[in-house]
C-alpha cells in the first residue's frame, strides 16, 4: 500500500500523470447513474412509457403543461422526481462520507455515523416528533443534533486524549456518544404515544423516501451536502497523505489536525443532512466505499468520486425496488441492509486485497 500511495504522492508533486483507469471507470459510472435516473422515472407501480415521461418532464421544464393525465403528471413529477433526486443526493453523500471516514480512520469497518452523526440526528428527530413539531422543524432538529453529537465526540475525544485527539480515543468516544444517543432514542420511544407518535419515530429510524417533499425535505439539505462534498474533494490528496500516519504527513507539509477536523466536518455535514431528510438509511456508507475500492483501489482521489457515483446509483436502484416491487411500502433502511449485507459478504470473500 505505501508503495501505491508513495507513487500517487509523487504523481501529484511531480508532473501529473493521471492513473490510467481513473477516467474510464468514472465515466462509465456516470453513464450508469444517468441511465438509472432515466429508467427510474419510468418504473414504479405501473411502468410509464419513455414518451410519457418525456412529455411530463418537458411540460414542467418549459412551463407549458401539456395534455398529460393528472395522475400521470403527479406520479412522475411529484412522486418519482423528488424520490430520484433524494436517492441520488443522499446515496452520494453517505457513500462519499463513508469513503472519507474509512480513509481517515484507516479502517474498513467504519461508516459515516462513526462519531455519532446518525445517533444525534435520531435524537433530534425523535424529540421533534415527540413534541409534535412540523416536518421542517423535525428535520432541522435532526440536522442540528447530528452536528452537535459529532462536536461533543470531537471535543470530549480531544480532552480525553489530552490534546492529541488520537484516532482511537476519537473512535471510542464516538461509540460512547452513539450509545448514549440510542439510549435517549429508546427513551423517547418508551414515552411516545403508541398510536401516532411511535409509528413515526419507528419509521424515521428505519429510513425511507416515501414522504420526501422538495420544499420541506430536499431544498434544506442541498447546501450542507454540496459544502461537505466540496470540502472532501478539496482534501482528497491530504487524505492519502494521512494514511502514512500523522508524523509522516506532518513531515510532508500536511497539518494532520486541520485535515482531520475538516474531513470530519465535511462528512458530518453530509451525513447529518442525509439522515435528517431520509431517516437512518444504513449500509450505504459502509458497503459502497468497499465496492469503490475494489474498482479503483484505495487512492482517495479516485475512491471518493467513485464512491459518490456508486452510492447514488445504489440507493436509487434500491428505492426503485421499494417503489415498484412491494405492494405496501417497505422502509428503505430495511432493504439497503438486506441488499447490502449479502453484497458485503461476497466482497469480503472475493477481495481481501481491496483493503490491504
Amino acid at each position, binding site marked *: 500500500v505505501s508503495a501505491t500511495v508513495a507513487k500517487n504522492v509523487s504523481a501529484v508533486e511531480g508532473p501529473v500523470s493521471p492513473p490510467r483507469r481513473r477516467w474510464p471507470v468514472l465515466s462509465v459510472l456516470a453513464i450508469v447513474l444517468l441511465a438509472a435516473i432515466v429508467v427510474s422515472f419510468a418504473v414504479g407501480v405501473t411502468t410509464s412509457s419513455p414518451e410519457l415521461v418525456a412529455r411530463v418532464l418537458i411540460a414542467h421544464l418549459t412551463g407549458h403543461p401539456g395534455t398529460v393525465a393528472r395522475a400521470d403528471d403527479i406520479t412522475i413529477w*411529484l*412522486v*418519482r422526481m423528488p424520490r430520484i433526486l433524494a436517492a441520488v443526493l443522499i446515496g452520494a453523500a453517505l457513500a462519499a462520507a463513508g469513503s472519507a471516514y474509512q480513509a481517515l480512520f484507516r479502517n474498513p469497518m467504519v461508516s459515516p455515523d462513526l462519531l455519532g452523526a446518525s445517533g444525534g440526528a435520531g435524537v433530534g428527530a425523535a424529540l421533534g416528533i415527540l413534541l409534535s413539531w412540523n416536518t421542517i422543524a423535525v428535520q432541522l432538529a435532526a440536522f442540528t443534533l447530528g452536528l452537535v453529537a459529532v462536536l461533543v465526540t470531537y471535543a470530549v475525544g480531544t480532552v480525553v486524549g489530552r490534546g492529541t485527539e488520537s484516532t482511537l480515543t476519537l473512535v471510542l468516544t464516538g461509540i460512547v456518544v452513539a450509545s448514549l444517543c440510542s439510549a435517549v432514542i429508546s427513551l423517547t420511544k418508551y414515552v411516545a404515544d403508541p398510536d401516532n407518535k411511535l409509528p413515526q419515530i419507528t419509521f424515521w429510524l428505519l429510513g425511507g423516501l416515501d414522504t420526501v417533499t422538495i420544499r420541506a425535505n430536499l431544498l434544506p439539505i442541498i447546501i450542507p451536502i454540496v459544502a461537505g462534498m466540496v470540502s472532501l474533494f478539496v482534501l482528497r490528496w491530504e487524505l492519502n497523505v494521512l494514511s502514512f500516519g500523522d508524523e509522516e504527513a506532518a513531515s510532508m507539509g500536511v497539518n494532520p489536525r486541520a485535515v482531520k477536523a475538516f474531513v470530519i466536518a465535511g462528512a458530518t455535514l453530509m451525513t447529518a443532512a442525509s439522515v435528517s431528510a431520509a431517516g437512518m438509511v444504513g449500509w450505504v456508507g459502509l458497503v459502497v466505499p468497499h465496492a469503490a475500492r475494489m474498482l479503483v483501489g484505495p487512492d482517495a482521489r479516485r475512491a471518493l468520486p467513485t464512491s459518490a457515483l456508486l452510492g447514488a446509483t445504489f440507493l436509487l436502484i434500491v428505492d426503485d425496488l421499494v*417503489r415498484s416491487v412491494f405492494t405496501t411500502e417497505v422502509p428503505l433502511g430495511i432493504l439497503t441492509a438486506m441488499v447490502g449485507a449479502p453484497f458485503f459478504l461476497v466482497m469480503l470473500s472475493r477481495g481481501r486485497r481491496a483493503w490491504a
Partner: protein
Amino acid sequence: VALLAGCGQAGSGPSGAVANTHAVTDSTGMSVMVPTAITRIADAWPAHNEVVQMLGSGDKIVATVLKPSSVPWLYTVEPGLSTAQTVFTDTTVSTERLIQTHPDVLFTDKSSQIAAKTTELRIPTLQLGFETYQDLKKVVTTTADVLGPAARAQAQNYNSYLDAKLAAVSSVTSKIPTGQRPSVLHIYSLNPLVVDGTGNIIDAWITAAGGRNAAQVSGKTRPVSTEQIAQWNPDVIILASSAFDASDTGQQTLDKVSADPALGQLAAVRNHRVYINPTGGWHWDRYGIEEALQIQWAAKTLHPEEFTGLDMVAETKKFYSQFLHYRLTDDQANRILAGQNPT
C-alpha cells in the same frame, strides 16, 4: 415553485378537485379545501374507516390502511371495502399506489409526515384524532362536513346517541359510592405485560361505567411488571383482544390467565371476574365509534345488578343496523360481544 403550482391548476383531472370546493377545519386546526362531491376516499387511520362507513360512504373507500384480517367485522359489515387497496401501513405510504386510486380526500391520524407529502401531491388531507368523547364527536362532525349533507344528519344521530348513552350510564353509576366501585385493570397485552393507565379514553370508559382504573400509571399501553399488578390487585380484569397470543381464542386466553402462577393469585382471577373485551368493526375499548357500546357493556359488566334491563345483544344489533347499515344475527352479535371473529 410557482411553476409547480401553476401546473397543478391547469391539470383538471378525473376527480375535478378544482371545480367546487369548501373549507373544513381538521383536528390540528388546519383549514383544508375539500371537493364538495366526494366519490373516492383514502383513509390512513385504522379506526376512522368505520366512521366513514357509519356516515354512509364505506363503499367509497378506495385506499386504506386496513386489511380484512385486521378488522374482519368491518369487512363483513361493508363487503365493498374489499375492493379498496391497502396502500398505507402504520408507518409508510405507497404514494404511487395512492395516486392511482384517485382519492378526492385523505383522512389520516395526526401524522404531519404523511400529510406534508400528500398535500404536496394535491390530495386534500385532514389530520384527525381524539382523546375524549367530546373530541370523538368533533371527529365525527368534521368527517361529515367533508362527506356531505346526508352524512351530517347521521353524524348528529350518532353524537346524540353517544350523549344519551353516556348520560344514561352516568346517571346510574354516579350514585355508586367510591367504596363500591371495583378497581379495573385493562390489559392490552399479556406477553409482554402491557396495561392502559390514566388520561385516555380507556380510563374515561372505566370511570363512566362506575369503575376505578387500577393502573396507577399515566398514559396508554404502558409496560408493567407482574409484581406491580399484584400490588394493585384489581377486582376486575378486562382483556383486550390484542392480549390474545397468536391464534388463541378468548377462552384459551382466559384459561391461560387462570393457570398463570402469578396472575392466578389475583382477586379478579380467583373471583372469576376476568372478561374479554368485545371487538366489532373496531376494538370497542379503543378510539372508535363503538365506544358508545363499550360504556354500556362495561357498566353492565361491572354492575350487572344495576343494569338488569340492558340487553347488550339487542343494543348491539340496534347499533349496527342504525349506524353501520348492517343487520346482525343474534349469533353474530354474541360473537362480537365475546371478542370472536366472524365465522
